[in-house]
């Protein structure tokens, strides 16, 4: 009848240097003050009503990949995680021990991807992602954030990008990729700061840092499609946002303002974002609200939608199709966050001759277990992701294919880890990989 038979987070605590350091500086008084500042000062009716109307029916347990992967362990269910964190904080008025905050931080940052799959299971309409986000906000204000993701947040505040990329390194990366691509397409340019271009292309900082070939591929695709595009040379080029996930909303606001203002300064018609899910969530759904903008000062288009445009308008012509069977992974932030499931399928079917759907699929697809900043919490919590997404491994294996199309960076990282750990013999591809591989390149040398 009580929680005592399930110790929950207490029995699976993981050592993280910054969680230990942060908790050691806490007092009960400070915790209570911060909890009240967030739950009463920042949050309002939405949180209060969710807390009151959650009927504790447990229906959401079937939704969560962590819970499914742990054989229905109730401490991993969405409501179980809210119970151990926000519901407990509200019930006690924030009168909890520093040690409790450690467990709450571990749950909120590493055992919930904010993927919102549970939305499809809750009759009342509780938004677990919102609630867990507020738990993170409290942890951020208490200084109790996992080390690795906190480092990326520091990078954002120090450099306005996620990966400590210096301004000259950013330009060097673009010029380097332009130089490489000119070996294939001699007339190709990556246009910097072109005022009045049709669109600004923004990417996440991990692209110049360690997936630089994606910039090469994008440049080839855009160049050969004959579109009018530009990339910014100054900060504002990175659309990623780990601050949104640590709970550092002030910094999130700075990042999004910088990104939008760069687009406005260049007088582009719209922003096209690379194949990233969390960045899209930040720019399209979260950051704008923090800044008080109901809509976006510059329209936002995700790559999936843009590729769909290029293909349906005939700007890209295909020389061949990808013949191996593929399956489609639906990234939460662009499917449950933007409804791109149909366009994703149209593009994939245009590129691939044999598409095998996962089950469940589309907006009901299971999460990659990397998003929501979980993979960014780093090596200490890698095992949490692997054990917490056996369900995804089973789902992938059941397709019987060897290639997974996943138009999201975090999904790639998470799925590759799962594929390797469970020895699935699969690999992941971006749509950009497939388009670059299959398209006609009339400008090629």
């Amino acid at each position, binding site marked *: *009848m009580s*929680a005592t038979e*399930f110790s929950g987070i207490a029995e699976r605590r993981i050592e993280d240097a910054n969680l230990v350091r942060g908790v050691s500086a806490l007092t009960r008084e400070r915790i209570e003050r911060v909890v009240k500042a967030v739950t009463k000062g*920042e*949050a*309002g*009716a*939405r949180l*209060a*009503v*969710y807390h*009151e*109307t959650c*009927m*504790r*029916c*447990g*229906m*959401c*347990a*079937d*939704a969560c990949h962590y*819970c499914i992967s742990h054989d*229905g*362990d*109730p*401490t991993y*269910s969405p*409501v*179980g995680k809210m*119970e151990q964190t926000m*519901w407990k904080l509200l*019930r006690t008025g924030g009168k909890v021990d520093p040690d409790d905050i450690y467990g709450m931080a571990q749950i909120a940052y590493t055992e919930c991807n904010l993927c919102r799959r549970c*939305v*499809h*299971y*809750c*009759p*009342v*309409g*509780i*938004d677990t992602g919102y609630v867990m986000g507020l738990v993170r906000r409290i942890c951020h204000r208490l200084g109790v954030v996992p080390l690795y993701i906190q480092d990326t947040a520091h990078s954002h505040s120090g450099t306005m990008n996620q990966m400590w990329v210096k301004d000259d390194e950013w330009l060097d990366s673009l010029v380097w990729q332009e130089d490489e691509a000119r070996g294939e397409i001699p007339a190709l340019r990556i246009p910097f700061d072109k005022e009045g271009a049709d669109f600004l292309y923004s990417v996440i900082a991990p692209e110049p840092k360690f997936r630089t070939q994606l910039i090469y591929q994008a440049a080839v695709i855009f160049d050969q499609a004959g579109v009018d595009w530009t990339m910014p040379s100054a900060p504002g080029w990175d659309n990623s946002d780990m601050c949104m996930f640590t709970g550092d909303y002030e910094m999130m606001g700075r990042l999004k303002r910088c990104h939008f203002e760069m687009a406005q300064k260049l007088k582009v018609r719209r922003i096209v974002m690379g194949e990233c899910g969390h960045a899209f969530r930040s720019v399209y*759904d979260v950051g704008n*609200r*923090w800044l*008080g903008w*109901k809509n976006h000062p510059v329209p936002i288009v995700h790559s999936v939608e843009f590729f769909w445009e290029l293909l349906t308008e005939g700007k890209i012509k295909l020389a061949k199709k990808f013949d191996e069977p593929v399956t489609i992974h639906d990234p939460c932030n662009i*499917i*449950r*966050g*933007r*409804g791109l*499931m149909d366009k994703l399928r149209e593009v994939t079917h245009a590129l691939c001759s044999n598409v095998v759907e996962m089950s469940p699929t589309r*907006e*009901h697809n299971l999460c990659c277990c990397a998003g929501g900043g979980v993979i960014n919490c780093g090596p200490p919590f890698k095992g949490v992701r692997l054990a917490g997404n056996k369900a995804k491994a089973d789902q992938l294996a059941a397709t019987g294919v060897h290639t997974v199309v996943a138009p999201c960076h975090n999904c790639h990282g998470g799925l590759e880890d799962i594929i390797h750990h469970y020895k699935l013999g699969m690999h992941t591809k971006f749509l950009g990989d497939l388009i670059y591989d299959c398209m006609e390149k009339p400008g090629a040398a």
Partner: protein
Amino acid sequence: MQQLYNFAVGPLTWVAWAVFLGGAAWRLGSMWALARKKDMNAVAYMDVRFAARSMARWATPFATLGWRANPAVTVATFAFHISLGLLLLFAPGHAVLWDYAFGVNVWSLPEGVADVLTVLVILLCGFFAWRRLQLPTVRFVTRPMDWLVLALVAVPCVTAFLAKQQIGDNLLLSTLHVLSGEAMLMALPFTRLSHAIFSPFTRAYMGSEFGGVRHCPDW
């Protein structure tokens, strides 16, 4: 006891209704004011069309992933709420009270149907209690408030059934029935029973976000 019964069906009824209506109005009004003050980044996206679409979908059994994944809960939830609603409004005994209190002639359920629905609600309360005791995913998150609201619904039904079937002291059971029913009415705005007044808004909001911003079904 007779005096207590008379008091319960007389003045206390008015108190119960006043507390219920006043409490519900106050809770809704103050929550709305709070939402206007703190949650405009959510309220701004409310959309009647998408709200109605989501509410209609979730009001249809097995029309959502959650309902389909939990067939027993789905049947129980719909049967429970529909039966309880019918009994609250149209139980034969309640029809007398509608007439007595407000002078309105309300259609009432046939006796046999009301009896069946009463038993059904009692059994479903038992089902929900069984889930809270036996299913780890429910037991882990069950708190005293959940038992309280279950009792607030079960007690009026059990006492109504016993009184109707002439089992035990009829006057005592009738009095307990009226008192516990009034307790349920008064508790509604202030306990988890408040989902009756708040859940239309949480559902409407989720429908609005998923329809208007995320362009994705929320079912």
